[in-house]
């Protein structure tokens, strides 16, 4: 299998085409611009649609239309743009439409800056818009994983009729790494017999809708969605534990932060501190099982994020008070060094 | 000969058809209250099947037929 050197944003775009993405709708924003630019070049050559919308709001609603028409569709943006898409994401979840949404996160709140951040964690994992819903959230930490997760994202979206978010950051989007686009066997996916393609001989019209004026019907619909979310939680949580076998302390980090934290873990190991790394790959569903696995031997946990403490809440919910949970975060696009995290690991050991 | 069929339970009693009828054959049936709670429209003899009532009706209350020349 041939390795190619690619920027994260471009590798993501290429993987989307290979995963069968037929339509892309987006609006320019830094730091994800290479992604739409790549698709603008490639989609017309390879039988797909690239369209630059007039706003993120329009883009996500174009996604709604195309998803409802039964094709694989994607949009991408960065934090402020993802905020604008929230209305559409709520409708997509309500109407149970599959699609892939990429957020290459930058610093906030407001216009913030264009540096890497992880401060959209709450927005991504708690629904983000109005109503009782969840989106599946994938958090790759290398360009290769980014590519691999794009295929999974489209499959998961189709399997569960639900939007899937790929949560990256400016570093991951911009950095160049060697990647392999592996051929993957086609998965058995449910037929899209609900899609609005025109009746084409069908007896009854198909309707894509999230309106249920009768509260009895709306509660039924919400309970049906909830059941689906429970199934996703049971089946789709993913994580990786590094240096975990003999570890007494654990650092928890995702995305680019996990790579820096892993370097810090290696430094601590050299000094004889038995520390491991838990790296959630899905942020929703949150991989609580990882904590069940290590809790019998864990003395303390340290969460490291590019935010002032968002995922740490899920860590605490997973640990359930059975061990101390510490936090270290940088914000506004400031990325911690491995040395900084190493110092925090030493502090954790001293405190517990 | 023409035939006008009125689906009385669809009528909301707006009366636009009564205004537009050139032969003034339509009227409110004040003896009847339909499932929607309105006095529905009714027709006397004399319909010429011009279709004006059906054109202005917002509720597809009317079905109208006209005898074809030489037909039965």
């Amino acid at each position, binding site marked *: 299998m041939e390795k190619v050197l690619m920027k994260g944003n471009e590798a993501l775009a290429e993987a989307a085409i290979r995963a069968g993405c037929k339509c892309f709708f987006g609006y320019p924003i830094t730091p994800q611009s290479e992604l739409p630019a790549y698709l603008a070049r490639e989609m017309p050559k390879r039988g797909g649609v690239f369209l630059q919308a007039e706003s993120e709001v*329009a883009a996500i609603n174009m996604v*709604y239309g195309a998803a409802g*028409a039964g094709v694989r*569709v994607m949009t991408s943006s960065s934090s402020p743009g993802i905020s604008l898409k929230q209305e*559409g994401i709520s409708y997509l979840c309500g109407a149970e439409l599959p699609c892939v949404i990429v957020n290459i996160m930058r610093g906030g709140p407001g216009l913030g800056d264009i540096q890497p951040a992880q401060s959209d964690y709450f927005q991504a994992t708690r629904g983000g818009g109005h109503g009782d819903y969840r989106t599946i959230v994938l958090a790759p930490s290398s360009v290769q994983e980014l590519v691999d997760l794009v295929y999974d994202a489209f499959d998961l979206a189709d399997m569960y009729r639900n939007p899937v978010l790929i949560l990256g950051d400016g570093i991951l989007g911009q950095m160049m790494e060697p990647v392999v686009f592996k051929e993957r066997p086609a998965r058995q996916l449910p037929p899209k017999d609900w899609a609005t393609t*025109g009746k084409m001989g069908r007896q009854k019209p198909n309707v894509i809708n999230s309106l249920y004026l009768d509260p009895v019907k709306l509660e039924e619909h919400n309970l049906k969605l909830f059941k689906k979310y429970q199934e996703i939680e049971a089946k789709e949580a993913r994580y990786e534990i590094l240096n975990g076998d003999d570890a007494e302390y654990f650092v928890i980090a995702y995305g680019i932060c996990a790579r820096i934290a892993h370097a810090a873990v290696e430094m601590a190991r050299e000094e004889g501190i038995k520390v491991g790394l838990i790296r959630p790959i899905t942020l929703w569903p949150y991989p609580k099982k990882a904590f069940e696995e290590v809790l019998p031997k864990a003395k303390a946990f340290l969460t490291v994020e590019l935010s002032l403490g968002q995922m740490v809440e899920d860590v605490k919910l997973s640990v359930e008070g059975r061990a101390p949970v510490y936090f270290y975060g940088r914000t506004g696009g400031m990325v911690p060094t491995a040395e900084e995290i190493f110092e925090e690991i030493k502090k954790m050991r001293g405190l517990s | 000969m023409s035939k006008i069929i009125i689906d009385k339970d669809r009528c909301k009693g*707006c009366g636009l058809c009564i205004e537009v009828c050139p032969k003034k054959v339509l009227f409110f049936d004040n003896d009847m209250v339909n499932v929607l709670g309105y006095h529905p429209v009714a027709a006397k003899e004399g319909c010429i099947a011009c279709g004006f009532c059906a054109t202005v009706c*917002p509720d597809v209350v009317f079905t109208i*037929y006209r005898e074809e020349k030489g037909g039965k």
Partner: protein
Amino acid sequence: MKVVFERPKSLQATKTHYCPGCGHGVIHRLVAEVMDELGIQDKTIGVAPVGCAVLAYNYFDCDMQQAAHGRAPAVATGIKRALPDRVVFTYQGDGDLAAIGTAEIVHAAARGENITVIFVNNAIYGMTGGQMAPTTLVGQKTETSPYGRDPQIAGYPIRVCEMLATLDGPSFLARAELTDVKNINKTKSYIKKAFEMQLSGKGFSLVEILSPCPTNWGMKPKDAVDWVKNEMVKVFPPGVFKEPKEG
């Protein structure tokens, strides 16, 4: 017996929720008649708005999507780009199209998006109970302009056809009035023309229909029709604003 009039097959038998004398019922029927006449029912996908016509998906007998408020042209764009050989139309009111969805309609028109837009202008928000719309006339009383629309406070009504006619994208733009038999037939001919534009790939088409809202105008159905004829047409002149040149 020859059928002079019957329910078009692209319209479901369901009774509508619209108020007595409301124009939506007539417009639904006209769109359905055009779908029948053009033989496109089986390949048409409609997009319902937010507003009084939100339940349009229960009335048309074709595939339908329900869009967020104002976003119908974006949703229709997504459908049409995914399935370019299908017929896609949006059905939108004045709040949906000319207030919250202004960006979407202008850009769909500017792109020459090959869709058909049915724009129902009744100068008021119906579903929410009679608030001022972007097309409310100067001086018109509504729930949120109780002393009459005052341009000093609330500005002026938007003329959508005239505004979109400045763009190169649209192929057909027309405004009709739902006032009498002649004008209802004219409305239908515009709707048919608009769909024909899409079928021949000429790009964006829109028909604006001045339509009575007796309930929220506080008028009897006949008086509401007269108000369209006597007041609305003064501000929104009916006619064709854009069509392809012959030949």
